[in-house]
């Protein structure tokens, strides 16, 4: 792989709270390449969300540089809103807009931000809804959907912007167990289609099966990084071993 394949590059990223008393991220460096599915695992409070949310600047880093497609997103001169259009995000609690129908949830951003025509946006949204088996729910409102359905809508809402990368923060953690599968299946399909994804999750099966690379975080640092095989089959790091023993 050459340098052009690097989509996101993170160097010496730190995020401190309470004037440095809490180091949510402590000097993190890594790269996300095009087509990768990077799965981030680690105990609760280890900084996974903070890391993910730094990538699209929902959290502003204390120190460090993040570039996206070669642009330094932390620079004051960068229009982060334009870059965010190319970085979709899927949240643990879906965050669908309750006052809008499913269709309007999906077309709002493409119409307002990409200046897509209403009918083009609708056609695209409809096609995506059908892909996730929700083709008949365009006129429903979020509260009329199950958790699994909501999350599938949240994923295709992000896809409506044709992003270059999708960021997932524990997309299945708020779901009833029987709905986890349907959301993971959608994510697997995306991975198969070559979508670049960064996924924070506790679903080790997904990490193993779909991940191209796994990052293990603890106490704000990247402790271990490697292929799923390297991470799961024969972990050497003690903290990773202890973590895996708990979750597997």
């Amino acid at each position: 792989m050459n340098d052009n394949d690097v989509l996101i590059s993170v160097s010496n990223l730190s995020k401190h709270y309470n004037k440095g008393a809490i180091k949510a991220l402590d000097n993190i460096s890594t790269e996300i390449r095009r087509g990768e599915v990077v799965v981030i695992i680690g105990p609760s409070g280890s900084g996974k969300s903070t890391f993910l949310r730094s990538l699209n600047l929902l959290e502003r880093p204390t120190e460090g540089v993040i570039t996206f497609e070669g642009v330094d997103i932390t620079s004051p001169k960068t229009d982060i809103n334009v870059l965010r259009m190319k970085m979709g995000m899927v949240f643990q609690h879906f965050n669908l807009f309750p006052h809008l129908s499913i269709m309007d949830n999906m077309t709002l951003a493409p119409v307002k931000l990409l200046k897509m025509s209403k009918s083009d946006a609708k056609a695209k949204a409809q096609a995506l809804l059908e892909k996730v088996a929700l083709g008949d729910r365009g006129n429903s409102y979020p509260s009329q959907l199950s958790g699994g359905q909501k999350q599938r809508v949240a994923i295709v809402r992000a896809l409506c912007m044709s992003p270059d990368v999708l960021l997932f923060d524990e997309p299945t953690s708020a779901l009833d167990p029987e709905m986890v599968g349907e959301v993971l299946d959608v994510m697997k399909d995306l991975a198969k289609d070559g979508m670049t994804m960064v996924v924070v999750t506790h679903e080790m099966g997904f990490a193993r099966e779909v991940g191209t690379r796994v990052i293990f975080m603890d106490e704000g640092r990247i402790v271990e990084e490697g292929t799923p095989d390297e991470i799961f089959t024969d972990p050497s790091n003690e903290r990773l071993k202890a973590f895996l023993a708990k979750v597997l």
Partner: protein
Amino acid sequence: MICYSIFQTVMLKLPSWAQDLKDTFYLNFIMKKRYLYLVNGLLTTLKITLFAVLLGIALGIIAAIIRSTYDKTANEMRMGFGKTVLSILNAIVKVYLTVIRGTPVVVQLMITYYIIFATSKNSVLVAVLAFGFNSGAYVAEIIRSGIMSIDNGQFEAGRSLGFNYIQTMVYIIIPQAFKNVLPALANEFIVLIKETSVSGYVGIMDLTRGGDVIRSRTYTAFMPLIAVALIYLVIVIFFSRLVSVLERRLRNSER
């Protein structure tokens, strides 16, 4: 007077107390078409209230957006032009809220009329401005609490799609906040109906002043003032009912 004789024949055999009541009623409302003081006064009251509440909502939304933008983003923002402007706007809004809520509305009305718009002939317009600015300060807090009640995830979802702060507010936060506080806003209208009763201080013939004029012409206080009170009461009850219907509708459509 023909009018009076018809009135008398209709209510011919009445006990004397009823006869008295009838006479004062006639004196206060029928004679010289004095009921018009109440009718026109009520229309003026409603006109002032309606336009003032609309102005108040517009001002309140602006003030609320400035306040909550400042609260949400001030410690995240870097030093610079944007932050300076926001800080100044926030300071202005704070002064506005403090002054309006710290002084009686009737004093604000008089200052607006006799000082700020001393040359204006249109006292109703002045009253709309005074009550509108007054109402705006209270609406601002209503809307602000509405904005604050929206889950932060909504805000993040909007920003993550690429909407800027203002767009996120306009397309995502305000519509939800507005829906949540609609009953409170309707209530503000009801409060304002009663508050405009001090309009007479600047010579406006509103409902209260209308009743008072009748009192001063007929030298009877009971009937005109009770009539005024009843009219307010009926109007307020009517709108309160409307608000609770609205509330029920909103709750049912809660999706």
